[in-house]
């Protein structure tokens, strides 16, 4: 029996990250191998934990023995566990993909893996923590490592992207910090469960102010318009797998935090409206801008923003179906967009300009990568029988049940735009003659396997969605059942206060 405790999600990668230089001194290849073991263990642990987890028995870990609300606790519920597992599994896949990291030198490789471990730590921490300040800390860990990762390559405009990211990220952290300060003055605690219980004591105006601060702060991580200026730059300048990390982990953590805040802490009706409005605006503007992109990765980045907008819309319904759809979307988006970024990394690597117009005839040059890119594109625009279809369907059903016909129409019209730009790429890949012969770097075996695995997940979930819907249903229940969450973390507190 493996020791399975959520604490390892934080401790192991963090520890490894700091010890990695030492390992590297011992034996160079360890730099690559050790993180792999860590990720493998985390992924394995996720599976173990997810088997048992039910909405009514979240695993609550108290750090350093302090019980909540005094100490920091980690909550591995069906929802947070699901996202954490997703992130850790994605982490493992991305490690596997980038195991032979571009054959660059010791330093780069070391930095890369340290930062990767830190990003994973931070993202999982955001998801698992039950303490608002702790969340802020993890957010900063994620943020700082993400800035550094963005600027990893010297040759590109990575530094510029990273600086923009940092500028906005610093604003985000300031706002969140300010919000935490204000919140603390009002409720005198940092434990989210307790905050949730005490929230009704807070004056509505202050509450709204705090909410807005949080909303803007987390909105930056969640790629909400107009706070998402960093997204296209960072996605397009970071190393290929890191873009997948951003799409699959950082953004997910951001939206998770946002949702946690909205669902758990603030029972504001207006919050959902705001989320809906911002989701719609984000989605429309991002997709529309994506249509006019010339560079492939920027296009994917905008598309990613659009998907985040869709997730926000789904969350904003505040119904079981909506949340279900949103979590499904998060899952799909993590898988599919990662696949897209991973394949794109190879496609773009072999062009001079990284523009879409340079991709003519790549279907022949790189059959596997192009096929998987096509698969990802088909899936992300929601064509059956691929997994993206189901999540889109659930979003629509949720919207329909909320009698939001206009929203449905908007989502669908935006999907049309999405189809246009993805299919433009596909038609270039497959149905254009290659302009000139450039030597092609073929994908290595490990990255091919990773991409194929992702593709298989997409197809199998698409053909048989019931593979995943059970987990998502649990997660939904867990998120929506606020009282259960509070009760499990702080037994009896709600009665005492009320």
């Amino acid at each position, binding site marked *: 029996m493996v020791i399975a405790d959520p604490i390892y999600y934080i401790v192991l990668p963090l520890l490894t990250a700091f010890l990695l230089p030492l390992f590297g001194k011992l034996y160079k290849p360890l730099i690559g191998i050790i993180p792999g073991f860590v990720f493998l263990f985390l992924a394995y642990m996720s599976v173990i934990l997810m088997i048992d987890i039910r909405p009514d028995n979240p695993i609550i870990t108290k750090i350093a023995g302090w019980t909540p609300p005094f100490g920091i606790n980690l909550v591995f519920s069906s929802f947070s566990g699901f996202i954490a597992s997703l992130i850790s599994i994605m982490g493992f896949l991305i490690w596997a993909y980038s195991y032979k990291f571009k054959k660059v030198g010791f330093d780069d490789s070391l930095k890369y893996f340290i930062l990767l471990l830190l990003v994973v730590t931070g993202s999982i921490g955001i998801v698992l923590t039950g303490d608002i300040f702790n969340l802020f800390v993890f957010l900063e860990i994620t943020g700082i490592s993400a800035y550094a990762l963005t*600027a990893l390559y010297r040759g590109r*405009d990575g530094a510029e992207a990273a600086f923009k990211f940092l500028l906005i990220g610093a604003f985000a952290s300031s706002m969140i910090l300010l919000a935490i300060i204000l919140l603390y003055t009002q409720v*005198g605690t940092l434990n989210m469960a307790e905050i949730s219980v005490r929230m009704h004591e807070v004056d509505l105006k202050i509450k709204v102010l705090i909410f807005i601060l949080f909303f803007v702060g987390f909105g930056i991580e969640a790629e909400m318009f107009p706070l998402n200026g960093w997204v296209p730059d960072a996605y397009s300048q970071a190393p290929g797998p890191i873009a997948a990390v951003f799409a699959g982990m950082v953004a997910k953590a951001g939206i998770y935090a946002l949702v946690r805040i909205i669902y758990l802490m603030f029972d504001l009706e207006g919050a959902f409206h705001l989320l809906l409005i911002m989701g719609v605006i984000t989605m429309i503007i991002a997709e529309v801008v994506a249509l006019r992109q010339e560079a492939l990765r920027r296009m994917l980045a905008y598309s990613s923003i659009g998907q985040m907008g869709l997730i926000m819309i789904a969350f904003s319904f505040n119904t079981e179906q909506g949340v279900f759809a949103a979590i499904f979307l998060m899952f799909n988006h993590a898988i599919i967009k990662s696949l897209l970024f991973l394949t794109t990394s190879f496609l773009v690597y072999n062009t001079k300009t990284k523009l879409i117009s340079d991709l003519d005839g790549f279907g022949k040059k790189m059959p596997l990568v192009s096929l998987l890119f096509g698969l990802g594109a088909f899936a992300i625009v929601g064509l059956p029988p691929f997994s993206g279809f189901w999540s889109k369907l659930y979003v629509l059903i949720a919207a329909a049940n909320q009698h939001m016909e206009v929203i449905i129409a908007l989502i669908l019209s935006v999907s049309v735009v999405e189809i246009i730009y993805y299919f433009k790429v596909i038609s270039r890949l497959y149905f254009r003659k290659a302009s000139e012969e450039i030597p092609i770097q073929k994908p290595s075996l490990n990255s091919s396997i990773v991409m194929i695995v992702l593709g298989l997940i997409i197809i199998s979930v698409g053909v048989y969605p019931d593979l995943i819907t059970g987990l998502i249903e649990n997660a939904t229940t867990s998120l929506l059942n606020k009282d259960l969450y509070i009760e499990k973390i702080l037994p009896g507190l709600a009665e005492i206060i009320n």
Partner: protein
Amino acid sequence: MQDFLTYGIYGTAIFLMLLGVYAVLVKRNLIKIVIGLSILDSGLHLLFVAIGFISGGTAPIFSPMAIESANKMVDPVPQALVLTAIVIGFGVTAVALALVIRLYRHHNTINIDEIKNLKW
């Protein structure tokens, strides 16, 4: 006097924050922007500490003397948190400065208006 002090601190904190924001938004020099960020952070930290402050309070250490004046004990949590926040702010500033160096090498300028390769 006490009010003046309290409000003075709060006012200073807010002023610092606004100053930071102003620097970030208006200054074209990357270094100045980073400084602006630091100032913004400082303002926040000051605010946080000020919240926990009680005029004439004691250190938040449990001792027989402190127990009888429990109400006078300053809140320990903000202080702890501010320490963390300062560390984080330091980290961010460090990364930011590193990036500025990188940018300067790459673009030969630290004017943010000229660093616009990535757009649209």
